[in-house]
């Protein structure tokens, strides 16, 4: 069976600087793929490339349709939600308005209302602060908001850019628990970029190790996590 996301020979650049040099990877329907690598390996760029935020060459196929070269908002409308680097909070708007924007493309009002409750169930803190200006939330709360905003789209594929960044370990644990729930209960496939390799490998089924814009090693998350040599030289734990 074809994978939900299939990427072949992906190249990307910022101006004259090439960042990705021909990557092949994919995400299974209902699966979680993680992309690991050091700073500057091209992890964030890979996610940006998938949703049309940078200039790319190569083939990107989502649910059987080519999406490379399409506008970001059109890719999003196909069901690709992105929790971006830096969280992308609408800082001037309230928490509730941020969530409502997440459901911008949806017309099923009742379902949206139910999803609000679901998000507030996952993250009760957001409910307490629903009227508050989102820019005043703590880093962890803003990350919860970013994840919830992405889920309000009812995506088929969730792109997660370092969700653990800058968060207390306990909150990271909580967040990853919720990712697992979302993946299993709602069948949302995920592409997870992480520096916290241990956490990412425990959650994911497939893993790709990235070095300066190329896939160095790929395999099942279990294999990569077990391999002493890889662990010591590349994952650093």
């Amino acid at each position: 069976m074809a994978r939900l996301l299939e990427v072949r020979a992906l190249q990307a650049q910022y101006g004259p600087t090439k960042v990705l040099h021909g990557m092949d990877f994919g995400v299974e329907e209902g699966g979680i793929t993680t992309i690991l690598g050091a700073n500057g390996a091209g992890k964030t760029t890979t996610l940006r490339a998938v949703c049309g935020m940078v200039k790319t060459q190569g083939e990107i196929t989502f649910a059987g349709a080519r999406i490379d070269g399409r506008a970001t908002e059109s890719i999003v409308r196909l069901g690709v939600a992105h929790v971006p680097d830096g969280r992308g909070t609408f800082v001037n708007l309230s928490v509730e308005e941020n969530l409502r924007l997440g459901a911008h493309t949806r017309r099923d009002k009742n379902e949206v209302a139910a999803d609000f409750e679901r998000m507030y169930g996952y993250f009760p803190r957001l409910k307490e602060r629903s009227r508050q200006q989102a820019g005043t939330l703590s880093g962890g709360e803003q990350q919860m908001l970013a994840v919830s905003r992405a889920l309000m789209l009812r995506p088929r594929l969730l792109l997660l850019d370092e969700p653990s960044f800058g968060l207390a370990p306990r909150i990271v644990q909580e967040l990853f628990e919720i990712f697992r729930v979302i993946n299993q209960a709602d069948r949302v496939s995920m592409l997870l970029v992480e520096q916290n390799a241990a956490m990412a490998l425990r959650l994911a089924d497939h893993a790709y190790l990235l070095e300066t814009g190329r896939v160095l090693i790929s395999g099942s998350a279990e294999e990569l996590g077990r391999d002493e040599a890889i662990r010591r030289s590349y994952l650093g734990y």
Partner: protein
Amino acid sequence: MDVLLHQILSGLATGGIYASVALALVMIYQATHLVNFAQGELAMFATYIAWSLMQAGVPYWAAFVLTVAIAFALGVVIERVIVQPVENAPILSVVIVFIALLVILNSLAGWIFTYTIKPFPSPFPSAPLFGNSYVTSHELGSIGVTLVVLVLIFVFFRFTPLGLAMRAAAQNPVSSRLVGIRVGWMLALGWGLAAAIGAIAGIMVAPTVFLEPNMMSGILLYAFAAALLGGIDSPGGAVLGGFIVGVLENVIGSIIGTELKLTVALVLIVGVLVIRPSGLFGKVLVTRV
């Protein structure tokens, strides 16, 4: 006392005009972080369209509605065709484009309609309403129309999904695309709305200042003062600023003489920039990282 009351009331009437134009300025400012210098000329041009329609025999309110719709479309087209291509250009280039728009619209109006000053009708009766002697019916009607427009705009932005999406697109285009908002179109809609508001302001002020290609130049200056006074990034502040500037201009003008009226606006602009650059209601953004 009567004189003062009269000055305040007619100040509120012109203040409503300033408030509308200031609101249009703020709407564009929030999306582009630039002042649209052509805002006044857009309003002037729309007023000429209304005048032409009326000359052709279209009844007043039909011409009013039609003009607002045409101005809206014109705003959208200008954004898509002229502003969008320079979206990522340096600030100065965009400013030049705005000034070019101002000059082009001004000359175009002069060329098509001549520079001769024309009278413009008011939809309100010439006899004062309720037999009072403080305020003309046109002033009262103008205040009413402006208030209705401002309330409608507020409700639109505050309570509708489209209004929310437009606010989001202006504040954070990158995140807006990531939730599927078509940012380009939202900005174009913003221009359309701003042009429509300006058109209403032009039609309401034309009976007082008369119709000519330069009718909005002074008003734009007052509107700019109003927007700065209220806070250039605060729509509510701009509206309140408009009314304050209108009243101040009238009251102070009657004391120191009408020749110095425009000075009031300039003093306000400089004063605000020196004492409180964010204006009365300019939001000081609180962010935690």
